[in-house]
């Protein structure tokens, strides 16, 4: 196959802005530039109109009322605001928070921050498929439990948590349920009422809207209160002060609108692409493991361990494919991913992991090309690997006394 230029396989890190989204945004920079909070003239009203239509689109995709949506700078802010905001508002009544060890750093760090302020935090483990155990969740809930925060779709391993069942447990026990759905919007059907979700974090740049915009859903019936983090003019119902960027809000709204129409089709296409790559790799390479549940995962994510081949060297070999490494050997710390560790993936296997992300603009040709390239490079590097050699000779690698350094 002829050499292709760089190909993007990192849709869980971020997505390009969909041209249709950009089209909707453009007028809001230099034409409709009013402050959406200006109440006295048409400049303000027009900008506000754009923001409110966007809010409706965001609400619609999760079955919410537009009044329950506030715009933020992204999912990190939304997660902070949801967790710390609820904690601050209700903290004198209940002080126990439940989350999970594989949550995004911004959730874990928000919880850590609160545990320094008198909150008890329970970090639920995950099963080897990456999902939490519902019985365990139910067991750790006490009459002091204020909030459960569990993400919808995992950024690293793509697994889908059983939101509806978690919501049911939370509602039954009178506990607020927050879910980080940055990776879930447009990937799985979401309905805040059916799933008993009280707070939901949404990100723009994971769904083909720009970076720097997100939203937080906050339930009104029964009402969930939060303390705001930012002091100011009281915009967004007093929960998030600061002038909104109509262009960014419109972008997020349009991205949600597109998904409302196209989610099902996109799901089909991505499923096909994923199957193509997974089968292609498995057919030619033994000892390749999929991390996280194979059934309960979004089709746009493959997190694979290529036993006996170190992840960063593999990334170097497929350098025109933009993928992400689970082995973290590329970052300053040489620790493998905390998420894979939590699944019980052995460290030596965690060092061989790659995250390959597909999305709206991935083509069949690209997947074919990438599959071939990955297979060839894994074969080449295994020929270089003393561990592969030992495995072929029948040596049990776990029995060797290695010199840890």
């Amino acid at each position, binding site marked *: 196959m002829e050499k292709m230029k760089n190909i993007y396989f990192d849709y869980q890190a971020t997505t390009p802005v969909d041209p249709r989204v950009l089209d909707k945004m453009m007028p809001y920079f230099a034409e409709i530039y009013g402050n959406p909070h200006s109440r006295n003239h048409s400049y303000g009203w027009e900008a506000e109109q754009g923001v409110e239509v966007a809010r409706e689109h965001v609400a619609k995709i999760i079955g919410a009322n537009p009044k329950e949506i506030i715009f933020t700078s992204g999912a990190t802010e939304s997660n902070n605001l949801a967790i710390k905001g609820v904690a601050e508002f209700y903290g004198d009544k209940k002080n126990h928070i439940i989350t999970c060890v594989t949550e995004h750093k911004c959730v874990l760090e928000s919880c850590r921050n609160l545990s320094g302020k008198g909150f008890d935090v329970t970090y639920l483990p995950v099963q080897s498929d990456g999902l939490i155990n519902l019985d365990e969740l139910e067991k750790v809930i006490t009459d002091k439990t204020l909030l459960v925060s569990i993400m919808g779709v995992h950024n690293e391993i793509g697994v889908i948590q059983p939101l509806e069942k978690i919501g049911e447990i939370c509602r039954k026990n009178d506990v607020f349920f927050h879910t980080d759905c940055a990776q879930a919007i447009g990937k799985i059907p979401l309905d805040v009422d059916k799933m008993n979700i009280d707070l939901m974090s949404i990100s723009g740049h994971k769904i083909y809207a720009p970076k720097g915009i997100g939203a937080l859903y906050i339930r009104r019936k029964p009402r969930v209160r939060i303390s705001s983090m930012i002091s100011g003019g009281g915009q967004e119902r007093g929960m998030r002060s600061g002038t909104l960027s109509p262009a960014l809000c419109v972008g997020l709204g349009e991205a949600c609108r597109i998904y409302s129409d196209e989610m099902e089709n996109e799901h089909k296409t991505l499923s096909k692409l994923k199957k193509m790559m997974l089968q292609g790799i498995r057919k030619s390479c033994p000892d390749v493991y999929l991390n996280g549940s194979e059934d309960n995962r979004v089709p746009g994510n493959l997190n694979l361990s290529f036993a*006996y*081949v*170190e992840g*960063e*060297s593999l990334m*170097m*070999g497929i350098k025109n494919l933009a993928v992400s490494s689970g*082995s973290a*050997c*590329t970052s*300053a710390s*040489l620790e*493998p991913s905390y998420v894979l560790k939590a699944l019980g993936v*052995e*460290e*030596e296997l965690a*060092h061989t992991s790659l995250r390959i992300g597909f999305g709206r603009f991935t083509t069949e040709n690209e997947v074919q090309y990438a599959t071939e390239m990955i297979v060839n490079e894994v074969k080449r590097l295994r*020929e*270089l*690997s*003393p*561990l*592969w*050699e030992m495995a072929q000779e029948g040596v049990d*690698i776990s029995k060797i006394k*290695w*010199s*840890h*350094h």
Partner: protein
Amino acid sequence: MAYSKELLDHYENPKNVGSMDKQSEKVGTGLVGAPACGDVMKLQIRVNEKGVIEDAKFKTFGCGSAIASSSLITEWVKGKNLDEAHSIKNTEIANHLALPPVKIHCSILAEDAIKAAIDDYKKKNKK
């Protein structure tokens, strides 16, 4: 992070990949590192009667820097006697490949590997 031309060349076209008979009296084998740490190097030397390293082979599980470091050191030790090979410093490897600071441990591993191979050879050939 941008790697040097030397490093990329050793990664893309590694020299002296392979294995020797580790039972042979003439062969010294060094196996260092650990899979759980993300790198394992196997380095082998064949030594002639004059105590000169005739040939060297390696296999490495590890990042590009680890592969390049082991490829480079196998090139360097060929034709050297055991004392000369033993005195190669990891800093020379790191400088030659322009390893970034976070990858210095790869050059240390290569130094450890050649020393381990020499020790193994000497142990076998204790007179």
